[in-house]
C-alpha cells in the first residue's frame, strides 16, 4: 500500500507589498515523515509555516491537506483538522502558571461545548497534565508564572501545548532555539520519539545541523523564499547550493 500524501502545496507564493517572501513552493509530504526546514535568517521559513497553519494567507497558490484544499483557513480551523504548530517566539499565557497553561490547552483539546463549563482542575486531566510536564522536564516549574521562566522552558511548554492537541501534522518553528546545548538533544529525543509513536507528521525549522542530521527523514532548504533543495539529509547537507546559501 502506498503511503498517503498528507500535505501538498502548489505554486505557493507570498509577497508583502512587493517583497517576495515565498515563491514557487511545491512540496509533497507523506504521512509520518519527519522533515527538517533549514535556511538562513530571512529565508522564508516562518512565512512558510505561517501559511500552512493559517496565520498568513498566501498571495497565490494552494495548500492541500489530506486531499482537501485548506488554503487560507483560519488558525483555529487548522487546529480542528489536525494542523498544529509551535512558535519561533513562544506564544504562551505569560501571566499564568506553567500548569494552568497546559491545563487550558488540554481542556480545549479534549472537551467541547458545555463540558467547558466544568471546573478546569478536573482530577484526571490534572494527573495527565503532570505526566506530560514530567515528560517535558518542566514539572518542577509547574507552579511558576510563565513570565519568570527561561526562553528554553517557555519553548518546551509551547511545544507541549501544541502536542496535546494530538495533531496529524505538527509544524515546529525552531523548537530548540533558546534551549541550552546540553538540553537540546534530550528534548528532541522526547518530542520526536513521542510524535513518531503516534505517527504524527512533523515539519520543524532548525538551525542546528546536528539535530537535523539525527532526526529527519528529509530536508527542505529555503533561500530567498524558494526551496533550493529537497532531499534526504545526507544528500542535502552536501548539496553545493545548500552549502553556499544555507550553511556557508
Amino acid at each position: 500500500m502506498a503511503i498517503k500524501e498528507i500535505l501538498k502545496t502548489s505554486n505557493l507564493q507570498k509577497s508583502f507589498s512587493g517583497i517576495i517572501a515565498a515563491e514557487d513552493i511545491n512540496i509533497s509530504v507523506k504521512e509520518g515523515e519527519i522533515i527538517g526546514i533549514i535556511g538562513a535568517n530571512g529565508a522564508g521559513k516562518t512565512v512558510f509555516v505561517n501559511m500552512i497553519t493559517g496565520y498568513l494567507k498566501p498571495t497565490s497558490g494552494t495548500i492541500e491537506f489530506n486531499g482537501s484544499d485548506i488554503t487560507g483557513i483560519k488558525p483555529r480551523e487548522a487546529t480542528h483538522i489536525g494542523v498544529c504548530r509551535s512558535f519561533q517566539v513562544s506564544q504562551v499565557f505569560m501571566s499564568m502558571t506553567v500548569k494552568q497553561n497546559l491545563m487550558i490547552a488540554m481542556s480545549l483539546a479534549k472537551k467541547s461545548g458545555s463540558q467547558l463549563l466544568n471546573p478546569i482542575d478536573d482530577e484526571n486531566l490534572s494527573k495527565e497534565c503532570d505526566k506530560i510536564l514530567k515528560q517535558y522536564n518542566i514539572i518542577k516549574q509547574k507552579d511558576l508564572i510563565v513570565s519568570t521562566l527561561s526562553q528554553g522552558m517557555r519553548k518546551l511548554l509551547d511545544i507541549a501545548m501544541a502536542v496535546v492537541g494530538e495533531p496529524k501534522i505538527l509544524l515546529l518553528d525552531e523548537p530548540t532555539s533558546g534551549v541550552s546545548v546540553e538540553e537540546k538533544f534530550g528534548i528532541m529525543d522526547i518530542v520526536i520519539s513521542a510524535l513518531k509513536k503516534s505517527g504524527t507528521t512533523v515539519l520543524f525549522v532548525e538551525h542546528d545541523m546536528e539535530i537535523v542530521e539525527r532526526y529527519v527523514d528529509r530536508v527542505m532548504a529555503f533561500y530567498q523564499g524558494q526551496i533550493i533543495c529537497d532531499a534526504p539529509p545526507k544528500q542535502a547537507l552536501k548539496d553545493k547550493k545548500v552549502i553556499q546559501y544555507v550553511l556557508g
Partner: protein
Amino acid sequence: MFKGILKEQTIQVGIGFVFIVVLLGTFILPEWMSNNFMYGLSRGLAVLGLMILWRTNLVSFGHALYYGFGAYAVAMAQKYLGVTDVFLRIIIAIAAAGLLGFVLGFILRRYREIFFAMLSLAFSMVLYGLLAKAEFLGSTDGMSISPSTMFGFELGRFGLFYFIGFVVILSLIFAHAYLRSSLGHLTTAIMDNEIRVEYLGYSVEKAIHIKYVISACLAGGAGGLMAAALGQVDPDSMVLWSVSGELVFVTIMAGLGNILAPFVGAIFFEFIRTYAYEFAPQAWQMIIGGTLLAIIFFLPGGLWSLFQKINPFKKEKK
C-alpha cells in the same frame, strides 16, 4: 458545572457575607444605612459584570446600557403586562439585558481596548436618547414602579431585601462556577495571548461574546433589582453616562481580586456618596474623586487588597 461549589471557600465566605449584610440591614441598622446596604448589594451585580469583563482587559464605559435596560424592562412589564411578581421581574430584567447583550455582542466582540469601551458608551447614549424622548415611558421623568409581590402577596421592604440577598448568592455561585471553568480560565488566557487561544482551537470572539452576555445579564439583574428597590426608573439615574462611569469607578475601587469585591465596593460607594452629600452638598463629587485618587495611589489592587492583607485564611484569587 456546579459540582462541589458549595464547598468552595469563596462561596462560603460569600454566602456568609450576604447573610450578615441582610441581617444588619433588616434588623439592626437604621433605614438610611440599610438602604445603602440594599442598593450596594443590588448594584454590586452590575459591578461584578464589569469585573468579569475587566479580567480580559475589556472595559465597558457604557454598562448602564444593560443596567438601565433591565430596569426599564421591569417598568414595561409592569405597564403592559401588569407584572409585579419579584421572580418574574428579575427574570425579565436579566433576559432582556442578556438578549440585548447577545445582539450587540456580535458587534462588540470584534473590538478591543478603547474602541470596545467607547462603543459600549455610544450604545448607552443611544438608549438614553430614546428613553428621554419616549413619552409612553415618562420621558425624562421616568416611571414609578409599584411594590413587588411574591405569589400574589406584597413583599415589603424586608422581603425585597431578602430576595436581593438570594439573587446575589445565586449570582456569586454562577460567577464562580463560570470563572473556575475551562471557559472562565480563557478569560486571562485571552488577555495574555489571543493568537494562542485561536491556535488551541477556540474562537476568541466567541469566548468574549459569552462573557459579554454574562456581563450584560448581571448588569440587567442589577437594574431590575434597583428598579424594585427604588420604586422608580428614569433615564438620568439608570442610563446616563455618569451611571456607567460610577460602575467603572466602583470596579476600580473594589479591585478585581475576588467576586465578593464588587459588593463590598458597591456598598462602600453608597456610603461615601451619602456622607459626601451630607458634608459637602455642593462639592460631593470632589470627595468621591479624592477617594478614588487615594485608592489608586495607595491601594492599587482596590479595597479588596486591603482584605487580603488582613485575611486570616488567605486564599488564591478566583
